[in-house]
């Protein structure tokens, strides 16, 4: 991205500057007009953007359909939670491992990314030979297994605190300031939600930059090559095994970062936050937005996260006014709309709402690709 700025024209600089200002003031505009609930929603949306961008590497770039992606989010969340809450204190005290606790953010975050990445490789390696549906099902299984372990690793030794979850997770502390407290700079009060907003924004931007740079590197090209034609990619000397594992690891590490931030933001994690439906929602963000296309994925994440919040503000009041009774509840409606959207988009616009040129081409190749195949056949028939 930075390279792009260098090459771009003054108008572009201006656009960039305006955009930066918009992003900078957004939480205050939101907070003033809609309340801090919406700032909080922005914060959570940012976490989903990171998640979706991570899954985008696996599904969008490398074409590996992962239905258990939320497991890496969980790994990140638990890493942060366990190292920054009183839960492990009794177990670790006196063992010489107390230094594990309360590490600075700049250590914990890479650690969460690393551990999630290692999980990505562990879960990815047995699935390398599988394709399409089978890969989806196996990753789904892995996702559930991770959740079940988090739910049950409270016995015989209490590691995760099982279904009770981990509570009293410390907020992020940066430059000696705890994010749970408001801070006033130049007369502007930055509350907890605002501080988290800027932190998450920074991380999301970082992940965007990393995504873009990976995409336009030899690694990114190798991912796409594998997605397009694994055999041909092999024949180009690409070590498909390593390159796929790298995709799993990178995607997982983004998930890990996002999960760690989720834990600190919520102050509480429990296994019920990492159910299969979350994986499906994140996948839907990637697919509906536009696989492999960063702006599309971001759009998908924002839309799918915020729509239910908007529905919450709309459906119930509307029903109360119109029929005086709540026949349909927003959650029900949200899921119904979500399901219909998945079907509808796949049928009508399978490349997603905001696809890359590339993807658009791919999904509209029915006719001419069939033709090409047939043509080859003809060439040899």
């Amino acid at each position: 991205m930075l390279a792009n700025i260098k090459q771009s024209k003054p108008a572009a600089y201006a656009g960039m500057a305006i955009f930066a200002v918009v992003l900078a003031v957004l939480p205050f505009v939101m907070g003033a007009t809609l309340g801090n609930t919406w700032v909080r929603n922005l914060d959570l949306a940012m976490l989903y953007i990171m998640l979706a961008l991570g899954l985008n590497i696996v599904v969008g770039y490398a074409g590996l359909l992962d239905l258990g992606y939320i497991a890496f989010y969980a790994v990140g969340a638990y890493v942060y939670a366990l190292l920054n809450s009183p839960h492990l204190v009794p177990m670790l005290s006196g063992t010489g491992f107390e230094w594990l606790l309360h590490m600075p953010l700049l250590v914990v975050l890479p650690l969460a990314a690393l551990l999630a990445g290692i999980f990505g490789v562990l879960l990815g390696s047995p699935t390398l030979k599988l394709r399409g549906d089978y890969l989806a099902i196996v990753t789904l299984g892995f996702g559930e297994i991770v959740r079940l372990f988090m739910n049950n690793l409270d016995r015989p030794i209490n590691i995760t605190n099982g279904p009770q979850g981990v509570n009293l997770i410390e907020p992020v502390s940066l430059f000696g300031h705890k994010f749970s407290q408001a801070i006033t700079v130049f007369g502007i009060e930055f509350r907890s939600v605002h501080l988290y907003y800027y932190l998450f924004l920074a991380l999301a931007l970082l992940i965007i930059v990393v995504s873009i740079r990976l995409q336009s590197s030899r690694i990114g090209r190798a991912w796409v090559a594998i997605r397009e034609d694994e055999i041909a990619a092999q024949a180009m000397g690409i070590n498909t095994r390593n390159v796929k594992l790298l995709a799993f690891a990178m995607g997982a590490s983004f998930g890990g970062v996002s999960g760690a931030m989720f834990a600190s933001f919520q102050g509480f994690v429990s296994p019920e936050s990492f159910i299969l439906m979350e994986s499906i929602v994140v996948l839907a963000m990637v697919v509906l937005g536009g696989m492999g296309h960063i702006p599309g994925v971001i759009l998908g994440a924002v839309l799918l996260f915020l729509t239910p919040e908007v529905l919450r503000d709309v459906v119930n009041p509307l029903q109360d006014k119109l029929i005086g009774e709540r026949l349909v509840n927003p959650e029900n409606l949200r899921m119904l709309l979500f399901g219909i959207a998945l079907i509808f988009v796949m049928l009508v616009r399978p490349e997603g709402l905001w696809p890359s040129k590339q993807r658009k081409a791919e999904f509209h190749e029915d006719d001419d690709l069939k033709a090409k195949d047939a043509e080859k056949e003809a060439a040899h028939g």
Partner: protein
Amino acid sequence: MANQANGEVLLEISGIHKRFGGLHALSDVALSINKGEIYGLIGPNGAGKTTLFNVLTGLYQPDEGKFTFKGIDLFRKKPNVVVESGIARTFQNIRLFHNMTALENVMVGRHVRTRANVLGAVFRDPKTRAEEAGIHERAQSLLDYVGIRKHGGEFAKNLSYGDQRRLEIARALATDPQLLALDEPAAGMNPKETDDLKKLMEKIRNDGVTILLIEHDVKLMMGLCDRIAVLDYGKKIAEGVPEEVKNNPRVIEAYLGASPD
């Protein structure tokens, strides 16, 4: 590398067997390809040419036999190792990365000769940038070399059939091969295109790349190859200069068909 005598063996296989279930697709195949030559492989449909090709490029693991390239043992090695050793290929049914541009396709071909890792990709250190620039430049010049530079920005699948064939060759050349294996590059081409292709292959050979060629167009093969091997039913039934092969009765029988009487 430049002054090595013609006749130096580049690739050598012997006693290669490959079975699929009950089908004995290759039995006891041996051949050697010399540096700098265009070596042809012909045979009727189903004779095992493509199977042999896949064995030589690592896509299939042979059941038994010997396979060396530049003296390196490549028996049962993975495709990426084979490519790294210097063998590149094209496919009978063109296998391009459809939804990448022509240029990107060729850039993928540079993968095996470049080293940038994730850190390099993310931080874009000078070394990585230089490497990336090199990839770009080399890919452009290869597109130029095969004569499709003006299509560099188009999706591979939108190129014409002939250009797709050329692109596949450019992509293979991007891996810096010493041996370029082409699987029916002229299939589906009209005479003009076939003629251009012939010139391209001669150019590639003159630039020092040895070529292994499968082709149905016997006419093309006779005019182009230095030596030809003929496969039938998974066995090599003849080998030699085109003139010999053409007059070999077993070859005639294999091609024109055994007389029913």
